[in-house]
């Protein structure tokens, strides 16, 4: 299972750090220092995951994502030195799956890569359109509009259900507030973000075993939410 990873990073020291990290985990990888050659590399190498630094010397990271997304859904993990949420949000809205903020720990990065890989894996062996979604103890019957946790049906309000469906359809991907608002309410009003938070909290209470240590739904403060793919043994 030699997964291929493309690293797009212009800083040598951080490049080295990522290189060491990936080597220890026996991933096959390649490092590109600028956007243009990285786009070429995506075509020729067909990576399983792309790790992208937003501050590229020759192009804007968001443009890079737009370009790549025009032909492939390969997971993209954004590395951002800028701690401003807006850059991350723009990247996520452009189609990135996840992000890490510098300075990040090695474990953090590896964990993100694993999440991304798990997503592609699950998508590979279950077609994209299916009527049942299973994740750990969570089971959604899309056609019957029912949700089961530990095999027992849970009653959700229409909005909670919609939220859960959107999250499950994009499992493993960080969904921004704007994206969720558009999906649920069709229009994006910043004033609705608090409502979204409350619905997410109530939904979590219903599906999580321990809401103070959520397993399924991750909160990214000021950014959005993500449903995690739980490994089958968990």
């Amino acid at each position, binding site marked *: 299972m030699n997964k291929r990873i493309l690293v797009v990073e212009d800083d040598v020291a951080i490049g080295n750090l990522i290189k060491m990290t990936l080597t220890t985990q026996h991933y096959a990888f390649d490092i590109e220092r600028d956007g243009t050659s990285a786009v070429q590399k995506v075509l020729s190498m067909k990576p399983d995951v792309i790790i992208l630094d937003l501050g590229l010397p020759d192009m804007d990271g968001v443009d890079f994502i737009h370009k790549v997304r025009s032909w492939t859904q390969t997971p993209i993990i954004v590395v951002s030195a800028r*701690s401003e*949420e807006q850059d991350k949000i723009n990247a996520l809205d452009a189609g990135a799956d996840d992000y890490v903020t510098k*300075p990040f720990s090695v474990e953090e990065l590896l964990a993100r890569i694993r999440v991304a890989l798990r997503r592609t894996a699950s998508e590979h062996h279950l077609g994209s359109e299916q009527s049942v979604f299973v994740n750990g103890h969570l089971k959604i019957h899309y056609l019957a509009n029912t949700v089961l946790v530990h095999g027992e049906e849970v009653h959700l309000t229409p*909005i909670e259900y919609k939220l859960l469906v959107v999250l499950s359809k994009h499992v493993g991907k960080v969904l921004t507030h704007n994206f969720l608002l558009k999906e649920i*309410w069709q229009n994006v*009003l910043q004033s*609705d*973000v*608090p*409502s979204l*938070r*409350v*619905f997410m*909290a*109530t939904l979590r*209470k219903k599906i999580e075993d321990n809401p*103070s240590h*959520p397993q399924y739904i991750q*909160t990214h*403060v*000021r950014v959005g939410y993500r449903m995690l793919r739980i490994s089958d043994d968990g």
Partner: protein
Amino acid sequence: MEDVRPSPETFLAKIREEDTTAGKLKIFLGYAAGVGKTYAMLDAAHQAKQLGKDVVIGYVEPHPRPETLALMEGLEQIPTRKINYKGKIFQELDIDAVLKRKPEIILIDELAHTNVPTMRHLKRFGDVEELLAKGIHVYTTVNIQHIESLQDIVEEITGVRVRERIPDYLIDHAALIKIVDIEPDELIQRLIDGKIYHIQQAKKAMESFFRKENLIALREIALRRTADTINYKQVMDNPSFKQCTHIEEHILVGISSSPTNAKVIRTAARLAQALHGKFTALYVQKGKDDKRNEANTERLQQHIKLTEQLGGHVVIVQEDDVAVALANYAQISGVTKLVIGRTAVKRKWWQPNAKISDRLNEYVPNLAIHIVPDHDNEPIYLPEVRNQLTFEWLDLLKMFVVFSLVSLLSLYFFTIGVSDSNIITIYILGVLILAIWSSGWMISIISSVIAVLLFNFFFTEPRFSFEAYHRDYPMTFLIMFISGVITSSLTKKIKKQASIAVRKSYRMEVLLETNRKLQHAKSMDDIIYEGMSQIVKLVEKPVQFYEIEHNLIVKSIFYRTESMTNNENNEIAALFENTNERGVVNWVVNNQHVAGVTTDIFPEVNAYYLPIVSSGSVRGVVGVALSKNSPLPAFERNILHAIMNDFSFALDKWYLQKLNAEVAKEAELEQMRANLLRAVSHDLRTPLTTISGNADILMTNTADISETEKLRLYEDIYKNSKWLVQMVENLLAVSKLDDGQFAIEMQLELVEDIIQEAFSHVIPINNTHKIAYHVEPELLLAVMDARLIIQVIINIMDNALTYTPSDSHITFIAKEVGESVHFSIMDNGPGIDDALKETLFEPFVTGKVQRSDSRRGLGLGLALCQTILRLHGSELTVSDNKPQGTIFNFPLKKGVMNIHE
């Protein structure tokens, strides 16, 4: 007299100054139609074009003159605007197109033209002035008879009354006047040849206007007027020249509402021009008859306006006697010449010299007086009387009641033997009461008659008949009638004056109140609200306020008036939303000039618009809903302008205060930054020393160090770099604070999300503390900047983790208390020293960098927390936990939200 010759530098500076400011006006002046003004203007345009100037034709009269038409070729033309007015199509200058094209020089024919009423300016010279103000040079043509001050002379010579006139200052302030002159004979020949008008028209013209004598006279006037202008400019432009003229002539003229007064004013203006003197017009406001009637007031306003147009200064004084007022003013103000009309002042029996001129002569014998012949000067008071004679049925009823009572009373007195003369007094008392109580003048006269009749009927022999035997009675009746009329008319007058006085004092009250209220207004909104409310109170009309920022309308607020019904208010509010009205507002903003109803600019709209100018830019526009039929009276208008002045002062003051506050804040931030930098460089040095030192040892002495030693060094590097990361996060938060209040994004956040996020950052993987959190109720929302509050929680938690031994309990509690959310972070560690507590939050602002290295992390972190919480309107406090430990507390505003389903 040192500075007689200005240096070349001053000349250059002056030229430069003239260049950079407004556009210049070049006038091609002729003495009659057909002298070739338009031709000369076009010719000049071609010359300018050859010099590389950007010349464009804005409007040229479409005469069928081939030479003129030929010259128009090769010049860019801005298409005229076609306006449909009352079924006819008019071609007019398209000023917006010109402003958009913004040429260097624009050609506009016929300066004196009156625009079609739907246009922006009443007169074409309004357009020209606007273009000049926008820095566009204008070439224009005008005939001499159109100049305001020459109107009477021209009328005398030619017998033609010129309706389209331009104010004199346009000529006097024009940068260049080019007189286009040909011999009158040649002009007549041209006319005969049909070069000016069609043959038919030409014949007619030759019989009336184009007579040789006329032309010669007009030519002379034109040449003279131009010569005067040259002289005038010389005097005005050259201060040294001014000093040479020893005495400045000061011409005084009396303004009145008399229909012929305009002629007097124009005469005075011409005199002033010729003598290069100052020109003042005095209006003597009589105490008793303030406003005679509408037509007169209107005319008076026109005369005041005329004076201002002619460059005169208007002074208003209160005085009963015109002659005394004129004489007094003349003496005080050093007037050299007085111009008056031969006004027929009503002869009064106690004044032997009724003529103003005679009396003036008596008061100020050494003053030169010019008397302008003035035949048809009739002071008409009739309309007023008719107005007052209106009659109301209610008054009749009042009369009936009063006289019934009076008669009953008199009958009673009569029976107890009171004499006739006393009974007459009672009736006159009745007339007096009626005069106060009723409204019309008519009733006063009628009541006097009825009083006499009633007295006759009830009390004279034979009683209960209208006959009277005694021969004294007719005399008694007459005197009773006269005294009745006089008392009642006096009372009426007092009553009216009282009501005028009340009205006036009400207006003054409004003005004073405005001043006071604006002084007390705290915020911009307050100022606007108070100012507008006062204006509404004053004008008793609805008012719209447009807030302007960077010359754009930001928002508009409508202020309704109590004196109209809701429906009327709403109708007017709808009128303000019209795009036309918005257009006018935009014009007012761009030109910083009043416009709208009762002005010459956009007179066809529904409101009077005034700009509020504060330090050079327009901050707002006030629209007062007015209609043509009910303009603001002069007094109200003056008060309105005074209020507007107060208003812009208040705004100025407010902006200044805001600016000062910003500067002060900036200085404080600057201080904070400097102190921070000192503190940070100190705090950074320690961990950096550890990191670089350990890495150095590992690189150079790898072989000599044992594996356990190495592990310890690695761990130190890791710990210290972790600390640095935390430090950088704090610095980022500080940089956010540096941007001031605006960078902070207050949002409703779910408290639990925030706590979880903070915990995920601060709790190490190999945590040995017992950490718990509790939120009550579960879905608690608070208003905050999430990033900053997370940083606060991280800093406090980090402290707790660092300064308590492992296995200590750390409990985080968020609780709803009233309108706020209370956060407490408690531990059961050793607690904090009381002495330390006081300086715990002491920020880097103190500038003292005397902390020991081991205490690092505490100083910046908690001080930052305090700053962040202060910005949230909150405060961080510390108290002791029982039995031991520390509690950190801070409240935040609770968030209330309507869930959108």
